[in-house]
């Protein structure tokens, strides 16, 4: 009797396939690429009744015709890897479409179990299904489940093990079709089966989803609701991250003293101790302390909204504008993700099938500020706003400047997308079909764990890789002196002419260069440069900060140019590495050049105009 087997999960998107996969395998899973394919496969395993089952979660797909990477991967995997059995995860509320896929899988192999998932949603929609009848019609085992509640999963495992061990003998009734006529014929058969098996109302017009959609998809309320939600998510992220960031910084401070004592005890000389502790360690821990808390808040919030089903609605509401820019409608989602983290936004561009439109989404993602750049905008925004209009209260000035920055960044996304699609990335706009699945209560626990593992840690790891060497470099620049001044001062001097033309100064430009690992470090580096301090430091008090900036010749124009450049310059190192991984080195270079040139042009222009006008 076999004691192990390979099981694959196949199914339409939005059938709860991932939930079934998670419920089967728990946290024993990892993602990997199948050789030569770009589509990622999730793999995991479970043990049941003495049998070890490897489970592979294939990407969600509507057919096996190999018209998209998902379809191709699914079909090739079934043909070449020859799994012991296929579990087709079907949507009980949309049975015909699921059966259309199941019938195609049955043409490749008889070893199929139909997992009739979302039975709870079907009950809520007053649909009555007859699994026994369905089993009879298809000739394969059918297991009704509600994976979110854990219903039916033991039965599913039983069936899987029994089929691996040869105790179940599926005798499917296949439908023979000509290649060109496949879909209509298969759908006719799917309809026949569904008519025998499902009873109840066809369209869910009176459901909770339909009522909520009438509001969220309405031309009047859709965009205001989305903007409010975005503002709420960003506010929660910013407000919630402050305290844990301080705690982390304090803990790392203790660690720094301990490390320093240890190195001293071990007899490390000062020239080795200082760069290791004040350069490497401090640079690294600084980036972790400022990046981890906001990401650990933003990503779960974003994933909750994703699980609830809001993201395709955002794409629906913004599609018209992206269509005008010649871009893909799903770019709305990568842009929304970019507000949290541009690196994650770049990864999210995988949802766009067409390589051309995916590149547009990747190259423009950095034009929206991630939450690492919001502190820059808020602190300096208050200064610019109240400097230009002294009557304005600081808080209001910050809100106005940040709000304006958001609008400008979204407009810049459309503009640069249009520019790209009219020049180097010209081509036909690909079609896209957006499925709007019913709203679903997110599984909070799973969301927290998965968003932390999949997104937060992945992004943090790439940040750490760059932060350590950059911390070291910054320390060397500030502490190695040539004659009177440090290397840092010389570099700032070299950048000064360009900085002044842009209405900034050399030290500001240098701070952006050295802030490559994380935008959060730009202000601390800038202060370090202005105060000629020899290690990273932070000024807590906004008024003291403003004093330092004013003492170094800042005006409201400097502040405004700083904001423009903070929004539009090269992406952080994490994002650049991600672009390189997703699209290649040449495109990463362009992803750096594009926003930098755009930001420089804006600063030069603004400075020129203001100087002409004032003089």
């Amino acid at each position: 009797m076999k004691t192990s087997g390979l099981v694959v999960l196949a199914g339409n998107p939005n059938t709860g396939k991932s939930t079934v996969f998670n419920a089967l395998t728990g946290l024993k899973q990892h993602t990997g690429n199948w050789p030569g394919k770009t589509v990622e496969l999730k793999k995991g395993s479970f043990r049941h009744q003495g049998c070890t089952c490897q489970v592979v979660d294939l990407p969600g797909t509507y057919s096996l015709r190999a018209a998209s990477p998902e379809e191709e991967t699914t079909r090739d995997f079934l043909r070449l890897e020859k799994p012991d059995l296929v579990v087709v995860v079907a949507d009980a509320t949309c049975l015909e479409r699921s059966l259309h896929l199941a019938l195609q899988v049955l043409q490749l192999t008889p070893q199929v179990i139909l997992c009739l998932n979302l039975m709870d949603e079907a009950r809520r929609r007053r649909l009555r299904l007859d699994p026994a009848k369905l089993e009879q019609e298809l000739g394969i085992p059918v297991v009704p489940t509600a994976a979110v509640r854990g219903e039916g999963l033991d039965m599913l495992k039983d069936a899987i093990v029994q089929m691996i061990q040869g105790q179940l003998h599926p005798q499917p009734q296949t439908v023979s079709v000509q290649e060109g006529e496949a879909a209509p014929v298969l759908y006719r058969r799917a309809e026949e089966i569904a008519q025998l098996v499902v009873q109840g109302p066809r369209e869910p017009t009176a459901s909770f989803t339909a009522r909520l959609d009438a509001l969220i998809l309405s031309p009047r309320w859709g965009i205001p609701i989305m903007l409010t939600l975005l503002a709420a998510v960003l506010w929660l992220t910013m407000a919630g991250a402050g305290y844990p960031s301080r705690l982390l910084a304090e803990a790392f401070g203790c660690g720094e003293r301990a490390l320093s004592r240890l190195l001293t005890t071990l007899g490390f000389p000062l020239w080795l101790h200082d760069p290791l502790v004040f350069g490497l360690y401090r640079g690294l821990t600084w980036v972790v302390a400022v990046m981890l808390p906001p990401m650990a808040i933003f990503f779960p919030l974003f994933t909750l909204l994703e699980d609830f089903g809001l993201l395709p609605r955002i794409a629906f509401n913004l599609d018209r504008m992206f269509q005008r820019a010649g871009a893909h409608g799903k770019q709305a989602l990568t842009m929304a993700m970019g507000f949290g983290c541009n690196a994650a936004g770049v990864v999210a561009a995988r949802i766009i099938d067409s390589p051309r439109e995916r590149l547009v989404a990747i190259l423009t993602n950095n034009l929206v500020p991630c939450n690492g750049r919001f502190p820059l905008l808020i602190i300096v925004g208050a200064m610019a706003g109240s400097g230009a209009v002294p009557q304005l209260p600081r808080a209001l000035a910050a809100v106005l400047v940040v709000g304006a920055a958001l609008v400008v960044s979204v407009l810049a996304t459309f503009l640069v997308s249009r520019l790209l699609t009219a020049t180097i990335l010209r081509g036909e706009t690909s079609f896209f079909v957006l499925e709007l699945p019913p709203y679903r209560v997110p599984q909070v626990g799973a969301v927290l764990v998965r968003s932390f593992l999949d997104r937060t840690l992945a992004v943090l790891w790439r940040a750490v890789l760059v932060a350590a060497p950059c911390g070291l470099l910054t320390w060397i620049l500030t502490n190695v002196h040539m004659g009177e001044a440090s290397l840092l001062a010389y570099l700032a001097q070299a950048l000064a002419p360009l900085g002044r033309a842009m209405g900034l100064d050399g030290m500001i430009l240098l701070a952006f260069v050295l802030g490559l690992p994380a935008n959060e470090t730009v202000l601390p580096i800038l202060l370090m440069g202005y105060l000629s301090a020899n290690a990273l430091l932070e000024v807590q008090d906004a008024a003291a900060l403003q004093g330092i900036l004013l003492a170094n010749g800042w005006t409201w124009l400097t502040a405004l140019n700083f904001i423009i450049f903070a929004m539009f310059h090269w992406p952080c190192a994490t994002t650049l590495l991600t672009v390189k991984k997703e699209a290649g080195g040449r495109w990463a270079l362009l992803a750096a050049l594009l926003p930098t040139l755009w930001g420089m042009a804006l600063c030069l222009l603004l400075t020129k105009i203001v100087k002409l006008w004032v003089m």
Partner: protein
Amino acid sequence: MTLADLKQGQRAVVERVQAQGILGQRLLDLGLVPGTPVQAQFVGRGGSPVAYYVRGSLLALRRTTAAQVVVTKEEDWQ
């Protein structure tokens, strides 16, 4: 008449998909085969995209894509 001509709340039956290639395939795979009843449910600003009920699911199509699906009024369909 095509899907793009349906007003909010109007129902029709798919006659055929005009699009060729991948787009045509995808529309068929999503269930827009001849004889399928559809209903235009939510219309975006400026008339695109539009979300349709198709076989129990809600699918949003851009106007240009919807114009590729020829439909007949429900009462005229045999």
